[in-house]
């Protein structure tokens, strides 16, 4: 698979790069950001995958979150893919900001006209790591995942559906129970059809109920003044209740005064990087 470098900027003695490639899962050109810490020049590093939220591209996280200093300090490669396939010319893909372009929801769609291209779940779980491991100095056994909002949902479902694959998981303001919120119902209905039982496989609160062991250590930060929290789109209480029942260790922090934005992410990103470094560098 050929990678084309789109940009490269030196940052905290490492490099923040953006690459483009032809994706076989998504059948279109896809971009991703990758931060290579200084340690990557001389040795293999663990990889931390970041999944962005609705309307984002591969740019938002790498320019706004301010994670590079902590990533450099802890010797972690950080990969940030785009949030959906682009330029596929599917009718209706640009109609709303919470469905279609920029809103892949990290599922493998089964409905037309989405099922050919909208396979973000398989892209993030299989194609992207394979590509990263083949082209960069990675330690393939050491992989973790985190994200924001829709990406937080993506991170949680990837970790819960693949026990043991990710060493750690964390999230900022995740959509915890898409089956029960407006965003989720629209997206899951559109990509997977009206049979609600098919949605369960992509809902973190549902997946927790049948998670086989309890060796996951989850950190979640949620802004208390997040408009989407009060609008009932995120539903963390449902996820916490399910984790309490199943004895899955979670530390959930409700942060006073913080909203849904990258200002919130930037404030707590260091805590999340340290959380992952503890497991990735152990």
């Amino acid at each position, binding site marked *: 698979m050929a990678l084309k470098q789109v940009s490269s900027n030196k940052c905290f003695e490492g490099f923040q790069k953006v690459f483009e490639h032809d994706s076989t899962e998504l059948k279109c050109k896809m971009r991703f950001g990758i931060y290579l810490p200084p340690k990557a020049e001389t040795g293999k590093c663990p990889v931390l995958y970041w999944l962005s939220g609705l309307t984002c591209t591969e740019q938002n996280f790498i320019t706004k979150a301010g994670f590079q200093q902590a990533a450099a300090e802890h010797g972690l490669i950080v990969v940030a893919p785009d949030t959906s396939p682009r330029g596929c010319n599917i009718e209706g893909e640009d109609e709303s900001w919470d469905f279609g372009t920029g809103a892949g929801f990290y599922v493998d769609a089964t409905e037309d006209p989405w099922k050919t291209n909208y396979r973000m779940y398989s892209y993030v779980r299989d194609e992207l790591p394979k590509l990263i491991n083949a082209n960069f100095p990675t330690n393939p056994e050491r992989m973790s995942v985190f994200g924001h909002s829709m990406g937080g949902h993506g991170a949680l479902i990837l970790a819960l559906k693949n026990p043991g694959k990710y060493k750690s998981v964390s999230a900022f303001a995740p959509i915890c129970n898409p089956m029960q919120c407006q965003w989720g119902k629209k997206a899951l209905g559109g990509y997977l059809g009206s049979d609600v039982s098919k949605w369960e496989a992509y809902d973190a609160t549902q997946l927790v109920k049948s998670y086989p062991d309890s060796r996951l*250590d989850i950190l979640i930060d949620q802004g*208390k003044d997040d408009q989407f929290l009060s609008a009932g789109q995120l539903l963390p209480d449902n996820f916490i209740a399910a984790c309490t029942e199943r004895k899955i260790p979670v530390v959930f922090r409700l942060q006073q005064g913080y909203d849904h934005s990258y200002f919130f992410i930037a404030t707590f990103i260091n805590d999340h990087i340290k959380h992952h470094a503890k497991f990735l560098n152990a």
Partner: protein
Amino acid sequence: MLKVKETYCTISNLLPNTQYEFWVSALNASGISPPSERAVYVTAPSPPIIKSKKIRSCENAALVCWESGDVNPVDSYTVELSKLTDEENGNTITESIVGIPNCEALIHLQPAQSYRICVKALNLAGSSERSEPVLIHTTGTYFCLNEDTAHPLLAILDDGFTIACDELENLECDLPVYDNSFTRCIGILGSLIPFPGKHYWEVEAEEDTEYRIGVAFENTPRHGYLGANNSSWCMRHIITPSRHKYEFLHSGMTPDIRITVPPTKIGILLDYESYRLSFYNADIAQHLYTFNSHFQHYVHPCFALETPGTLKVHTGITVPPWTTLL
């Protein structure tokens, strides 16, 4: 007065650490001579008694204090320490610290060793016998619980490290109260941790025990509740009708945090250098919360119960590696 025929005499049963004057007179049929010049001798002191219950130590140092064996002051003390090894002659003295003016010494030690420590008192006459030795293990930070700070309803069990509260009735009635004890919060302080660097200890609690555990300054108000003022920091666990509730209190404020797996063994890391106090679920190495505070003074570990129950404190634990990052 002793009568002897020889020109020498041995006098025994003298008091230790005491100055004596001796003089001799000669006696014959005609009478007694004027007394000789006086000879002044001081007897050597008694060996000191180390206060073994009050020893505090960590991986790098120990604070040992003792009582003088005598009423009168001595000139100085000497501490002798020997590192215990597996060899036959493991009792060779490896270090002496001389000229100690008071009854305590801060001794620098190496981690993960065992030491035998004695103290000797010195005066003009020389040195006392060695005191009874104490053993110090530098596996981790050791402290004990200060009985005189305990709330009247709080009992320390025989092992010295488990605290228990049987009932919350009779809270208002006249119970014996010491000047230094907690009066409202059913709490107790551990001994001061006066060593720089990192210190780690664990507290075992049943799932249904409500508690406050953390650290406090010496002068934390005894009429107050741990965490409600600016001289104490603690993790608080209470049970509401719907769930376990956790607070991390300082100056009466707490962040809003939910924890899904109630810890039954809480690890507490005190890091004077990095200015932090961290709490962990030690059974699963899960980080719960960290206070970032520039402690202006050394602190005491503190413990309190809010329901009948017990808390068991474990000390002397090496700082676990999974605490280093967070």
